[in-house]
């Protein structure tokens, strides 16, 4: 049920939902094959099929799930994996903050359930939908959530099952994971600070990793990288990108996450 809010012309809920479904199909069409790659990655890390499906439904965060698969394979302690997960998924704070004004009239319990399904794609699709209709639409939110949850889980399960029939090393599927991580990282880059943070993280991860092991290097890079990025001065032209954080008060939380939504739609993972 949609609730009208705001001024100015708005699309009908039905019209906006049709557009939401069209956009959602495009997202589902890449979530499925990327899920296949994740399924293959989990096979290398000795997950069971149940582990894969539960991970997709319970965690529902592609970047963090890919990271966890790599860390499990490395034998990283679970608390460190949880720490990396929290870091990788910290951006959801911004998404959640942007959706909050639309959900103000909903019950706390409903918001708590909806929060579980908040992914990059769900955020991008639902925020656009709410803006078109100038209000909240619970069914629209669930459509935005399911178009990523279903293909991602399905693709991951198929990828896991198919992995047993192929030689991952011969087909070079082992390189898909670091390639996907690099691509996802690049998809989040929108300014000099992002570049500096990512390159700094790479340098720290490799240097520390050579001394203390890959998993320690990874955590060190992930934690130190943002500080390196923050040392880069902000260019005025970047003030609507990552560098906007320097002027977050002026831009406001919604302005910040609008930019995040545009990038999120391009990442290719939940």
């Amino acid at each position, binding site marked *: 049920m949609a609730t009208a809010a705001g001024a100015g012309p708005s699309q009908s809920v039905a019209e906006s939902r049709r557009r939401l479904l069209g956009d959602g199909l495009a997202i589902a069409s*890449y979530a499925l094959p*990327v899920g296949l790659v994740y399924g293959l990655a989990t096979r290398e890390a000795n997950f*069971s*099929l*149940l*582990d894969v499906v*539960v*991970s997709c439904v*319970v*965690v529902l*965060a592609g970047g963090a799930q890919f990271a966890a698969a790599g860390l*499990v394979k*490395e034998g990283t302690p*679970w*608390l460190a994996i*949880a720490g990396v*997960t929290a*870091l*990788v*998924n*910290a*951006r959801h704070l*911004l998404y*959640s*903050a942007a*959706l909050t004004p639309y959900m103000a009239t909903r019950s706390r319990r409903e*918001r*708590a359930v909806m*929060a*579980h399904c908040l992914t990059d794609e769900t955020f991008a699709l639902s925020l656009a939908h709410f803006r078109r209709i100038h209000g909240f639409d619970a069914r629209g939110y669930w459509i935005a959530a399911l178009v990523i949850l279903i293909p991602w889980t399905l693709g991951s399960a198929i990828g896991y099952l198919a992995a047993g029939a192929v030689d991952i090393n*011969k087909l*070079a*599927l082992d390189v*898909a994971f*670091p*390639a996907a*991580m690099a*691509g996802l*990282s690049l998809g989040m880059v929108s300014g000099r*600070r*992002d570049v500096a*943070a*990512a390159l700094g*993280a*790479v340098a720290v991860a*490799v240097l520390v990793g*050579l*001394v203390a*092991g*890959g998993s320690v290097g*990874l955590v060190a*890079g*992930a934690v*130190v*990288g*943002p500080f390196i990025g*923050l040392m880069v001065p902000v260019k005025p032209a970047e003030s609507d990108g990552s560098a906007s*954080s320097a002027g*977050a008060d002026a831009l406001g*939380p919604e302005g910040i996450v609008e930019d995040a939504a545009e990038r999120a739609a391009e990442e290719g993972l939940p």
Partner: protein
Amino acid sequence: MSLGLIPLAFLMWLATYPSRALPMLAPGIERLPPPAVAYLRLAGPSALAALAAVNCLLTSDKPPHLLLGVEPIAVAICAVVVWRTRMLLPGVFAAVVLVAVVRSAGLG
């Protein structure tokens, strides 16, 4: 069937859910101080870049060594393709094909 990693999934949920739910459940928290917002924005690319680097530049033996081979080149090519197309799948595909071809030629 192993259930060994299911507790890890719930641990990861515990690490993720607060960032998804806190602003929705406690309005006002969305007004994080600018330095915290800035750090959070940079955490995603940093963590994923570090992960890619560790997986393609370091060997898995102990102590690790720098990995010199086609894999880092393939990851770099993936990055270039993603940069140009803004799509992940073609980049991953290009990286996989390159490494598969090199390995099948006995060069990797």
